[in-house]
């Protein structure tokens, strides 16, 4: 407990973090997966877990056949830095996943795909820059002599168009982030009930590694929605938010 508390408070130096990372990798190669997971988790607890740590952590869970945490951390890594390696690990996890969602949409809605497809940082920075430029040009346009105004007007309109488009993308990202809450089933088996309560009838079961949307939260239970719109209430502890 003390070590955990310290790890929460103290950050590792870059050398210490790399050493811990290497120890975790060595434990993984010795097939001591719980040891590797514990070391990666210490980096995460110290807020020093980037996409690489998340990737290795998810891979360690996957090697230990712990599908829930594996999909959780690999998906987090994918959201931070999508690449082929993460996609390959996730494909392996998907092969091992027990649930087959029948009638699922082939892909997410357009706005969600758009929000995930673009990197928020250049889009946000681009929007801010274009937004300021547009208003700066507008000021110049107002103060400019009449003979030069048409050129400035065109440039100003272009800046406004670009900034508005970028702002719309940022707005989509904000909307998706605020309204679409995703989670991964981490329990080996989670009973989805018809309403939040232990006495509720079990409508279906989901298994570790399934990606779901969280639609509602009542404290102990959350309402999840599967990709085919099937919904049920599971205990909150059985899922982990992305």
């Amino acid at each position, binding site marked *: 407990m003390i070590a955990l508390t310290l790890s929460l408070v103290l950050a590792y130096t870059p050398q210490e973090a790399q050493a811990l*990372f290497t120890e975790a990798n060595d434990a993984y190669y010795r097939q001591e997966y719980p040891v590797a997971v514990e070391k990666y988790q210490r980096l995460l607890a110290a807020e*020093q877990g*980037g996409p690489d740590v998340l*990737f290795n952590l998810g*891979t360690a869970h*996957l090697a230990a056949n712990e599908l829930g945490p594996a999909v959780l951390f690999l998906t987090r890594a994918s959201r931070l830095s999508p690449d082929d390696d993460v996609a390959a690990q996730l494909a392996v996890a998907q092969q091992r996943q027990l649930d087959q969602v029948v009638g699922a949409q082939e892909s997410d809605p357009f706005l969600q795909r758009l929000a995930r497809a673009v990197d*928020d*940082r250049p889009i946000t920075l681009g929007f801010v820059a274009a937004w*300021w430029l547009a208003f*700066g040009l507008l000021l110049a346009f107002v103060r400019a002599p009449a003979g030069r105004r048409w050129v400035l007007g065109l440039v100003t309109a272009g800046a406004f168009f670009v900034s508005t488009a970028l702002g719309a993308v940022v707005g989509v990202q904000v909307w998706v982030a605020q309204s679409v809450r995703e989670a991964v089933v981490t329990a080996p088996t989670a009973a989805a009930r018809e309403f939040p309560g232990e006495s509720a009838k079990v409508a279906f079961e989901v298994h570790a590694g399934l990606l779901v949307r969280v639609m509602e939260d009542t404290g102990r239970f959350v309402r999840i929605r599967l990709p085919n719109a099937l919904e049920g209430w599971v205990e909150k502890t059985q899922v982990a938010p992305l």
Partner: protein
Amino acid sequence: MARTGSALITALALLAAGPALGAELEFYMTVDRTKVGTEDTFRCEIVVSNAPEGAVVQFPAPPEFEVLSRSESTQMSYSVGSGGMGQIKQVRKFTLVMRANRVGTLTIPPAGLQTASRTYKSEPVKIEVVAGRLAPEPRAQPRRAQNPFGLPPGFPFGDDDDFPSLGDPFADDPAIPRSDSDLFLRASLDRPEVFVGEQVTLSLFIYSRMDLMGVDAVQMPKLEGLLSQDIATPTNLQAEDKTLGGVHYRAYLLRSKALFPLKPGTIAIEPAEVDISSGVYPFNQRKLHRKSNPLSIKVKPLPAGAANVGKWRLSSTVNQTDIALGEPVQLKVILEGRGSLRNVVIPPLQAPASFRVFDPQQAEKTSVSRNQVGGQRTVEYVLVPQQTGRFELPGLTLEYFDPESQQVEKTSTDPVAITVRPSGTGQQALAVPGNPQAPAEPAARNQLVGGGLKSLRHSATFSAPRTAAWRHQAFLPLAIAPPALALLLAAIAFVRSRVGQEDEQSRKDKQAKAARKRLAQAEKVAAQGSTTDFYAEVDKALRSFLEARLSLNVTGLTRPQLDEAMAAAKVPEPVRQRVLGVFETCDLGRYAPGMGDASARRRALDDAAHAMEVWP
């Protein structure tokens, strides 16, 4: 049970097949031992010679003894006497197998022979009975065994090898239980003391003097701390004749198991139980339940460092030693011998780094010969060279503890030299064994099969997971600031424009006021008598006023132009005429000084002041 403790008198009609007259009757009783243990059996023989017809033997029935079996035999002999008369001698011998029920000096009471004329009595026999068993321990002596596996020539354990006797089921001479002596279950071990991992054979027999129909159920004991392997589980019971302490039994083998202790110490084996159907169908059928004796094994620890137990030989073969780059090599490592094959760990192959070693495939085949468990394990490695050259696959060495010699032995394979030539296609080939889709073309060996987990990352950026840029606290102010600033600037411009308008009016008012002051100055000049200067001042004052009101530089304008400007400023016609009239008077006063009398100056001054006052 049926034959014990009863004082049966068997009537025996002796067939005196013409015994010769004069033959004497003999009747006596003997025992084969005078000192026995309570677990021992002994023979009591009652001999009757030349008994008369109708004689009946009365067998002793002492309560201190148990009669386990009874049998009889008859001998006839013929001899020629001194007078040339032939004599026939008939000897009948009754054999009782007995066992004492208690210790002490016991007496077998005399047997009797009842004839028509009299009753004969034998002498009583004293027996000293001690506790336990006085007879030799019924353990089997070591025997030389044949080749236990029937292995081909060259196998290290040939017929000439010393080999301990293992699991001979009839080497055991079990004690007959005091109850159920007609049918009892006996579990036995072929040795009482073994090493960890050494085989000990557990045998379970039914000994019976009854007619058996079959065995309904066999419940073997839990073998905790032991690894077991079946040696024999007969489905059809085969009887073997067996004499225990002089009592004839039929012995049926029920189960035979090879046990391998997993830890040192004393391991207890609980009794086995069976359900047996006896009798002859459909008569006299009975269901009987029997329980065997418990057993225990003393397990000795292995010497330090010993892990594998048995007697093993390790060998290896390789399919080719001269190969092209990318061509697979198959190395077979064969382990064979006696012992628990499952417990033997073959050290892994330490191939050179220039070889890619695929996971080996293992095959095991266990065998049982003469109750000795053994087998053969084949480990097949597939190695693919990654570079050309000459390499050596190191030999493998297996250490094992041989319980027979009680020493740690070694068996090794020879190292194998492999020459790797450049591939004919010049290709860095990597063949995958067992791939059904492997192309047949030699040039197309390069099957790089994907799948599996990707490798870990070995360098990382140790940063907290980045939050979205738009979640940054500066984002919202930065996004709101431009329109807010624009609105602010517009508001300021609006205010300033409004304020600027007021200033213009004020400026004009000030300018008009200054013009009026100038008129007042002109009056002073007029009082001093300078007419030219007076009109110049009036002209300047009026022009200043007009410039303030019209926001126009009126210097240089002709009078029509001035009139037009005033008309544009919506100055009423009377005011315009009055202004133009003042300018006309000033011109005359400046350039025709004679025209400038006091009344004219007064009128010019009044007209200018009036025009300023009524200016809209």
